[in-house]
């Protein structure tokens, strides 16, 4: 089995530390959802568990910061699938 690049915990920590709310949404979708395929290759995503642990805590922190309902309208999202 081929062993390929490794993601360090530092990378994950940095990603979350610098994330704004839209990036958190992207992390939630692209990094903790979706079809997982690892076919005859070993991927060293060693820092990803940290993201799973901290992501909802960061969303919760965002919820404390924003005092009222806060919304990102669909037209502001980066793309249109219609």
């Amino acid at each position, binding site marked *: 089995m081929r062993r390929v690049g490794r993601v360090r915990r530092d990378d994950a920590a940095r990603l979350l530390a610098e994330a704004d709310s839209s990036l958190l*949404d992207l992390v939630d979708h692209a990094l903790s959802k979706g*079809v997982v395929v*690892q076919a*005859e290759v070993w991927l060293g*995503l060693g820092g990803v568990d940290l993201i799973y642990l901290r992501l909802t805590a960061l969303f919760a922190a965002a919820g404390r910061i*924003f005092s009222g309902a806060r919304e990102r309208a669909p037209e502001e999202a980066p793309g249109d699938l219609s």
Partner: protein
Amino acid sequence: MSLLYVYAILGDAPRGALGAGLAGEPLRLVPIAGGGAGAAGAAAAAGEIDDLPPLDADALRAHDAAVRRLAAQVDAILPARFGSAARDAGALARALEPTAEALAAALARVRGCEQMTLRLYADAPAAGGAAPPFPAAPRDVAGTVTSGTQYLEVRRRARAAVAALAGLDALRAALAPLVTGERAEPHDTPPLRLTLYHLVRRGNAQAYAEAVRAAAPERSDLRYTLSGPWPPYAFAPEALT
């Protein structure tokens, strides 16, 4: 030596060019065998890259951008999680063949749809004191829930807290005409209580947003954030290894 980086499973033939991936590599299709007639035409969209992309914001955005371009080319798509890869096309086909039926079912579910993500926040217990107490979950020094039993207890308490959210039933009822599928994730990290991933028909995202605005209770203790439309990341079957 390169590896095959996977972006998505497509349910039908793309209407146009597949475009390039996050390293600028041209994308190609790897057919998925098996799964009966329901999986006919399904294929993985992938590109050859030299090594895994770094885990940073630019790479995540590039992954998502490629998935979105693919989504615009087909009616049914299951996004792959960032970092999905195969040794080569043969390995990818062998890995996907046993899951072809599950993929076909998931593709049928998301066909013609996109995803909206609605997060609900509440600071205070529901009116009338109906909300159960919400003590901190047992965690170790790294913040990890420390056992399976404790994890289940956390989930139970999170579900109970969500059930006590005033206005949630009314919100769900108001959105129901627009929602074709739902995945709900309760959280034990107040004020975040619940994330609802909703499938809506393509083109209905604006109507969904307006329905949320109209139905969201005028309450100071229930707030929301909404994002979308997204490719249906939350409706892809997991762990196809």
